[in-house]
């Protein structure tokens, strides 16, 4: 299917509406990647859903990334959205610092964001404000650390019967 929207058109339109909140725009592998300030993410996603030209009304994916070296911007929350009517995809990113990892939840716009945000919280500890039930979903409730952060190892720390010298860790 051919695409009715082009990357430049979409970038123009979003920048026209939200000019100063778009911190950077790139197009790696022909997919618009916009960095947005974290307190404006909710508004932008809501506008994208309601806008008549763009109709970007489907949340494909939501995830987090941990960059321990970037001070002040340790966590990136990446949203992949797409427009089924126009066959168009877009990626939005927001960075939050590790001391205060909070961002608004998208549950009131897309119901499907519920579990995706819980998973991101479970793995990284990012707090989504306004989420109805932000608890662990995949790991046990008694777990006291966030396993996907880079400082934690893959293996179980409490295991005593494996000798690391043989396993090359």
């Amino acid at each position, binding site marked *: 299917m051919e695409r009715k929207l082009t990357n430049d058109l979409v970038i123009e339109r979003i920048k026209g509406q939200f000019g100063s909140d778009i911190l950077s725009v790139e197009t790696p592998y022909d997919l618009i990647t916009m960095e947005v300030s974290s307190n404006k993410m909710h508004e932008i996603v809501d506008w994208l859903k309601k806008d008549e030209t763009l109709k970007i009304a489907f949340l494909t994916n939501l995830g987090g990334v941990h960059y321990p070296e970037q001070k002040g911007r340790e966590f990136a929350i990446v949203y992949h959205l797409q427009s089924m009517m126009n066959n168009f995809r877009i990626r939005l990113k927001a960075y939050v610092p590790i001391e205060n990892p909070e961002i608004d939840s998208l549950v009131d716009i897309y119901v499907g964001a519920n579990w995706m945000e819980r998973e991101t919280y479970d793995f990284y500890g990012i707090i989504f404000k306004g989420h109805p039930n932000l608890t662990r979903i995949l*790991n*046990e409730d008694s777990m006291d650390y966030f*396993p996907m952060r880079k400082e*934690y*190892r*893959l*293996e*179980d*720390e409490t*295991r005593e019967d*494996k000798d690391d010298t043989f396993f090359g860790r």
Partner: protein
Amino acid sequence: MGKIEDLEVFNGEGYQLSRLDKVIAAARANSVWPLPFATSCCGIEYMGSMGSNYDVARFGMERMSFSPRQADLLIVAGTISKKLAPILKQVYEQMSEPKWVLSVGACASSGGIFDTYSVLQGIDRVIPVDVYVPGCPPRPEQIIDGIMKIHELVKHEGMRNRYSDEYKAKLHKYNIEIDGKKIDK
């Protein structure tokens, strides 16, 4: 398979004479009712062994019992995570004697390729296991080979094995209660 060696039967007029433990062993080995505790990919291979190509119905095992009280053999096929381990232990405790455990696949036997913070490295950390079937996933023929080894164990079970001190010591190691008496940890 189900044939019991040296099972001698003396037939008379309206009666049959044989050894009780041999007859019970024959009955048990040919009608093991499994409890398929299938979690992941090994479960699909187990389902394949239930199909018509690798039929387990010829061993008398087509009646899958999902109720622990009515099952003889607990087939654990698939990865067991730490979140699921208490449930596995509960299911094992609910099974009535005599019972056997078959661990199918690398994940159930030792954690498999998943040496991570969330996977239990082998179910023998929580319940006693009788036969291990390695593979990722094992072919249905391998699962049937494991089942036949279980049949060997069933045939030589005897009547009093469950009350022996050896068995009590084994369960004590896993903190499993026997006869309603809870083991103090």
